[in-house]
């Protein structure tokens, strides 16, 4: 029926990988790596700017999560090349409003993830698995806000 693997197998696999990650260093997380990438990028062009910002300075080193996220990107790429790509919404990249929607969406998504200290990985997969009430609150708000946004604006264009 589907060209994708069974959800139960995928869910258990991700849960086991998260447990392994916890055992090695810490549970899975992704969004801090966006900050680390920014900090590493700025570090090469404007070092004083990093020194002035304690948050960027703290994340200006290659850490466990960044290595894991880079490997995740490569793992996803290999899987796509071997088993086939997943669907996107190419129309969004062709119109000015579509490009604006994608950029603003990405901007708000990571901005919000940093306020809540985690994204779908850090808060929903890992925070909820640790039974954190803060992460559960974050997850519920994510689904409410996401559902309402798509109800109001639609999901296609």
């Amino acid at each position: 029926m589907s060209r994708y693997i069974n959800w139960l197998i995928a869910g258990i696999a991700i849960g086991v990988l998260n447990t392994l990650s916890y055992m090695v260093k810490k549970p899975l997380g992704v969004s801090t790596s966006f900050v680390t990438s920014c900090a590493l990028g700025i570090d090469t062009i404007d070092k004083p700017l990093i020194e002035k910002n304690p948050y960027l300075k703290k994340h200006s080193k290659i850490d466990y999560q960044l290595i894991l996220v880079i490997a995740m990107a490569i793992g996803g790429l290999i899987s796509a090349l071997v088993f086939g790509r997943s669907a996107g919404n190419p129309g969004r990249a062709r119109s000015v409003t579509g490009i604006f929607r994608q950029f603003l969406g990405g901007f708000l998504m990571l901005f919000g993830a940093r306020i809540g200290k985690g994204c779908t990985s850090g808060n929903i997969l890992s925070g909820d698995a640790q039974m954190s009430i803060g992460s559960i609150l974050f997850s519920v708000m994510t689904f409410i806000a996401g559902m309402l946004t798509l109800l109001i604006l639609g999901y296609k264009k």
Partner: protein
Amino acid sequence: MKGRFLTGLQAVIIGLLFGAVLQRAGASDFNKLTGMLRFSDLSLLKIILTAIGTASIGIYALSRKGVEHFTIQPLQVLMMGVGGLVFGVGFALNGYCPGTGIIASMEGKKDAIIAMAGGLAGSLTYAFMKPSIDKSLARPNYGKLTVDKVIRKDPLGTAIVFGVGMIILALTLDRIKRS
């Protein structure tokens, strides 16, 4: 030095598998991600619930063995609430989440690449606004609250009930939606 190398190698292996499973499960598929937020395609939600349940039991079992690598954030109600709201709006607008958006970008999808560029800009903006955000959203703060602490029960026992509950919810989700 040897320890750091081993940790890095383990990060690479876990990351490679994590990315491959996400991609193979359709988690970087625009239609599946927006379908989850519209509750029209529940497969990713079922994956998330199962993954939470499995990891919950695994993590708290390891904790019982003395492995304490928790990353629990304090329950700052406004911080987590506002963060989730803004995150959810952004997620719904662009159709990918951070991890799956990175994978979708690697697959060559331009819609995802633009969103991830926006994500870098959003992260950088946050870095400069952090002091004022922290000041305005810090309270109320109830500390590192977890379900077991709220109900005052054994952490591992709670995690097993919580984890099994999540997996049962995933298994019955289709039936709940139909009724």
